[in-house]
């Protein structure tokens, strides 16, 4: 989805002269097309995420630009959190933060490269819109949506090779739940690349349990009315995310259910706090009960119990 997003960004930049890109010395082999075509709107800020973020803010405010920052995992978010809060959000600047490597995408790189508290932290930032595409199709749509939405944004991308979640073309607005697969027993809501496991889980369990799969490609602000309409139809809700179980999707869904007195049972699939194992992404998912088979099995047990 990274490639799809950046290709779309280059396309948009041809029409929209406001678009600039500032990278934190990362993006080798993917940001070059932008850099070569728009050298005046590109900057490598170096390994200096604090100044990268403030520079993006100053650039945006002085000349009314939409400045995208780009780096990996927690580098463009946690490393420069106060710059995001005070500079980008405090001035409602058009700075769009792209982080590559959502969740445990970089499993073999270890703890330093796990972006698993980012939704909790970025979700608390004022004026911040958060994008969590599930596949390349959504990533491309999100490039447009981020550009149309004023103010700061956080765009959480996985790396490459995610399969399409749906054959259909569809559009989505801010905070809308998207239905990829219908069902009636369990409503499974996922965000990001782990939605592929959700789709597979639904297939594995078919015949036994009717599992609907929904995504939330714009995580914040969530469209609560729409979420309530969906959630109230199901006796079981399951949230699936490559994020800590604190402050991510499970928290958001749980809060909506509580506020709206929805009595469905909530199952949460997330990473344990302080997760620091090493391995490939599939191996690490497996170690936390986040593979399609494990999700299907856990849901089955919960319903049978």
């Amino acid at each position, binding site marked *: 989805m990274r490639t799809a997003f950046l290709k779309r960004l280059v396309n948009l930049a041809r029409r929209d002269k406001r678009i600039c890109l500032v990278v934190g010395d990362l993006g080798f082999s993917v940001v070059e097309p932008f850099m070569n075509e728009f050298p005046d709107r590109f900057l490598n800020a170096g390994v200096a995420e604090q100044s990268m973020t403030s520079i993006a*803010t100053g650039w945006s405010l*002085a000349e009314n630009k939409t400045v995208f920052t780009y780096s990996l995992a927690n580098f463009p978010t946690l490393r420069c959190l106060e710059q995001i809060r005070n500079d980008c959000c405090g001035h409602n600047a058009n700075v769009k933060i792209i982080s590559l490597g959502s969740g445990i995408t970089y499993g073999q790189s270890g703890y330093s490269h796990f972006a698993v508290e980012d939704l909790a932290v970025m979700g608390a930032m004022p004026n911040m819109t958060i994008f969590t595409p599930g596949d390349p199709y959504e990533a491309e749509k999100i490039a447009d949506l981020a550009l149309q939405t004023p103010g700061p944004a956080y765009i959480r991308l996985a790396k490459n090779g995610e399969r399409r979640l749906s054959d259909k073309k569809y559009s989505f607005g801010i905070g809308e739940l998207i239905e990829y697969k219908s069902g009636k027993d369990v409503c499974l809501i996922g965000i990001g690349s782990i939605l592929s496991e959700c789709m597979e889980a639904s297939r594995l369990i078919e015949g036994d349990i009717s599992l609907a799969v929904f995504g939330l490609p714009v995580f914040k602000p969530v469209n609560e009315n729409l979420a309530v309409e969906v959630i109230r139809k199901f006796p079981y809700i399951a949230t699936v995310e490559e994020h800590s179980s604190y402050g991510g999707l499970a928290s958001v869904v749980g809060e909506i259910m509580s506020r709206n007195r929805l009595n469905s049972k909530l199952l949460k699939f997330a990473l344990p706090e302080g997760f620091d194992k090493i391995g490939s992404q599939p191996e690490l998912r497996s170690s936390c009960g986040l593979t399609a088979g494990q999700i299907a099995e856990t849901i089955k047990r919960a319903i049978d119990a």
Partner: protein
Amino acid sequence: MIKFNNLVKYAQSVRIKALNCVYKSKASHIGSGFSCVELLVYLYSRWLNVSPSLARDPNRDRFILSKGHAAAVYYAMLAEFSFFPNEWLDRYCEIGSLLGGHVQHNVPGVEISTGSLGHGLPIAVGMAIAAKRAQKKYRIAVLLSDGEMECGSNWEALNMASAQKLDNLTVIVDRNGLQAMGFTEDILPMDNLEQRVAAFGCAYKLIDGHNFQDIESVFKRTPFTMGKPSVIIAKTIKGRGVSFMENKLEWHYRSPDTVQYEAAMKELKNI
């Protein structure tokens, strides 16, 4: 442009207004404000292309007060130059007032909110890059405290400023020698600050930050070197203008009691 000979009077008026602010509100940082009165008055009266009528002009010069805790003095100066009514100062730090203890951009004349140190210079670098890339002629100035030069983000930004040859950027360091817990030289010595900024690719000048002649002669020469950011290290005195506040750490925090207020006012008015 305001006449050079009137600058001293403006500085005196700004100090009196700022002292009233912190006396009434019991707020802090009067010492930090008093060290940069002349610098601010000079910038807004004779160097920056800004005024209340140019506040939204896309070609105006941009100024950022990175040491946002000097808010009382900055706001007093903005009121002095008619960015908003003087009466607003009467409600400094009160509920419902726009004017708080650290600079906020919803106040007329303020470009950027500050208060956490180490933010203003990197933002100024972003603005200077924006101007260069858009081939605009406006200039960007940022005023920092010397203690603030301990922030790594400033050195990230200077690194970029020289790499991008930002000669439209002027960085002013209010070198009063005191930071929140004591003298800078006792905490993290920076007596060779000018060598450090030179090593980062900046052109620099040292000035007496309370002497308008000195200030003007140096600011007139910016950019000092084509293709390089200009850094002005202004030697100043914390608490300047009130004898018992000068070079005293406690006036980073204290607000004057009635006796101190009256004594200070007497000194300021007798200049």
